C-alpha cells in the first residue's frame, strides 16, 4: 500500500486554557488525504480546524498520535507544505515580485531564474504588471493572489490554506475560489483547506470533513462527487450544499431544498 500524501493518526492536541483547564482542541483525530486530493475542513470556530492545519504544517506537534506526510513523521515546517493565511502574511517591505521570490531566494535559486519563476506564477494568478507594486497598494483579493503565487513558486506538494478568503468580500471570494479550483485541478497539488463557508467547501473539495467542537473531532466526512468545473447554481450543487448545512445543524430536515434555493428559483414564485 502506498502511503497517503497526508495521514493523521489518532492525533490529540491538548492545551491548557486561560482558566487553567485542560482542553482537547483536537481529540483522537484520524484522516487520510491522498496525493492531489482537495479536502476541506469545515466547522464552527473552536472545532480544531486550525489546530489540525498547524499540526500538518509542522508549526505545532500533537500531544499524542502522529502526523505523517508520505509516510514520514512531520517534525517541523517545510517548504513542501506551504501555508496560506487569512491575513495574507505578505512581507510589506518587499515588492510583489520580491514576495513571490522569497521562498526561492532563501533556497539559493539564482536571481535571474527565480525572477523568471516568480513572474510565471504572477501570470498564473493574473497579476502580471503588478510585480513592482508593494502589498499595501493591492486589494485584499490581489494580496491573497500574491500569497498563492508565493506558495506555488516553491512547487510544494501540498498547500495548507487557513480560511484564506475569510477576509474578502463575497464577489472577490467567488473569483478566488474559481481560481483556486482551476489551479488545484491543473497543478495536482494536495490541498487542505480550512473554511467555515459551506458553499466554498462544496465548490472546492473532493471531500468535506465536517468537524465538531469540544473536543475537536470529525463529525462526518461528506464526499463531493460533482464534476469540475463546478457550477454553484445547479441542482446537484444546491442539494449537496443543503446536505452539508443540514449536517451542521443550520437547516432542519423536511425542506432543505426550498430554504436554501435563491428566491427567484422558488417553484411557487416563478413567473410563467
Amino acid at each position, binding site marked *: 500500500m502506498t502511503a497517503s500524501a497526508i495521514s493523521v493518526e489518532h492525533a490529540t492536541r491538548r492545551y491548557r486554557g486561560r482558566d487553567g483547564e485542560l482542553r482537547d482542541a483536537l481529540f483522537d483525530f484520524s484522516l487520510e488525504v491522498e496525493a492531489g486530493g482537495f479536502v476541506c475542513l469545515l466547522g464552527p470556530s473552536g472545532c480544531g480546524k486550525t489546530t489540525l492545519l498547524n499540526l500538518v*504544517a509542522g*508549526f505545532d506537534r500533537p500531544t499524542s498520535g502522529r502526523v505523517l506526510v508520505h509516510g514520514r513523521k512531520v517534525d*517541523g*515546517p*517545510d*517548504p513542501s*507544505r*506551504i*501555508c496560506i*493565511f487569512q*491575513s495574507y*502574511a505578505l*512581507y*510589506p*517591505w*518587499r515588492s510583489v515580485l520580491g514576495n513571490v521570490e*522569497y*521562498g526561492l*531566494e*532563501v*533556497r539559493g535559486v539564482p536571481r535571474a531564474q527565480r525572477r523568471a519563476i516568480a513572474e510565471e506564477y504572477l501570470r498564473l494568478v493574473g497579476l502580471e504588471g503588478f510585480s513592482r507594486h*508593494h*502589498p*499595501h*497598494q493591492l*486589494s*485584499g*483579493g490581489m494580496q491573497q493572489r500574491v500569497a498563492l503565487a508565493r506558495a506555488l513558486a*516553491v512547487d510544494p506538494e501540498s498547500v495548507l490554506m487557513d480560511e484564506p478568503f475569510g477576509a*474578502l*468580500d463575497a464577489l*472577490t471570494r467567488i473569483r478566488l475560489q474559481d481560481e483556486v479550483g482551476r489551479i488545484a485541478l491543473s497543478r495536482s497539488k494536495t490541498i487542505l483547506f480550512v473554511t467555515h463557508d459551506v458553499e466554498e467547501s462544496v465548490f472546492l473539495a473532493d471531500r468535506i470533513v465536517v468537524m465538531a467542537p469540544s473536543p475537536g473531532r470529525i463529525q462526518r466526512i461528506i464526499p463531493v462527487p460533482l464534476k469540475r468545473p463546478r457550477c454553484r447554481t445547479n441542482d446537484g450543487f444546491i442539494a449537496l450544499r443543503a446536505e452539508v448545512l443540514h449536517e451542521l445543524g443550520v437547516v432542519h430536515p423536511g425542506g432543505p431544498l426550498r430554504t436554501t434555493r435563491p428566491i427567484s428559483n422558488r417553484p411557487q414564485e416563478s413567473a410563467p
Partner: protein
Amino acid sequence: MSAEAVTAASASAAARPRRPPNARTVLAAAARKLLPFSGVALLLAVWHVLAASGLYTAEQLPGPLDALRASREVWTEGTLLPHIGASLARFASAYIAAVGVAVPLGLLFGLRPSLWKAADPVIQVLRPISPVAWFPLAVLWLGIGNLPAIAIIFVAAFYPALLATVSAVRRVDPVFLRVARNFGTRDHQLLLKVIVPAAFPQIAMGLRIAVGAAWVYLVAGEMLGARSGLGFLIMDARNFLRTDLILMAMGLVGAIGFAIDRGVAFLERRLDARWGLLPEEHP
C-alpha cells in the same frame, strides 16, 4: 467589507464634481498654512514687548532685534558657521555611535528574551539618570573637550534607540516568522531578511526620538570645556555677559533641532509609506 467601503467612497468622490476654489476657501487654506507661523510671530512679539517694557535691563533681556544684530556680528566675524559645524560634527558622531551600539544590542536583546530579562533592570536603573548627572564622571574619565561632549550626547541617544529596537523586535508579527520558517529560512538569513525589515519602522521611530534627545543634550555636553560649538558659544557669551549672543545661540539651537527633526520625520514618512503603514495619498 473594506473593499466595499473603498469602492463606495471613490464612487461618491467621482460623483461629486470638483468645484473651482472661491476666494473664501483660498483664504481659509492660506490661514491654515499661516497658523504655525503665527505662533512663532506671537512668541517674538511677546519677547519684544517684554524686552522693550523696561522690566528688565538690556543686559538681562535683549530683544529679538538685538539677537539678530548679534547674529550679524558673529556672522561677519566668520565664527558662526565653524561653531555650527563643530556642533553638528559632535552631534553626528555621537548619534551614529549611539545608534551603532544600541541597535545591534537591541536586536540581540529582542531575540533572546532571557538575556533581556537580565539586562532590563540594569537599563531601567541607568536610564532615569540624566545625562547631565554623568558630567563629573565624564570629565574625570575623558578629560575636557570633545570626548565628554560626545559621551553625554551618546548617553542621551542610547536609551531611546535601544528600547525602541528591543520592543520592535519583540513585536514583529509572529506570522512573518511562520512564513519564514515555512519557506525554509535559515537562522542566519532570518535576521536580515525578515526580523530587521519587519522591525524597521518601529526602530526608525525610536531613532527619531533619539535624534531629538541627542540634540537637546548637545548644548550641555559642549559646556564641558569644549572650545567650539553652539554650547561653547553660549558659555563664552555668558562669561562676557553678552545676553544677546546667548539668546541668538539658543534660537539657533532650537531652529537647527527643529530642522533635523523635520528631516528625520520626512525620512520616516517615506519609509512608512513604503511599508504601507500610511495611507497612500490619492490625488
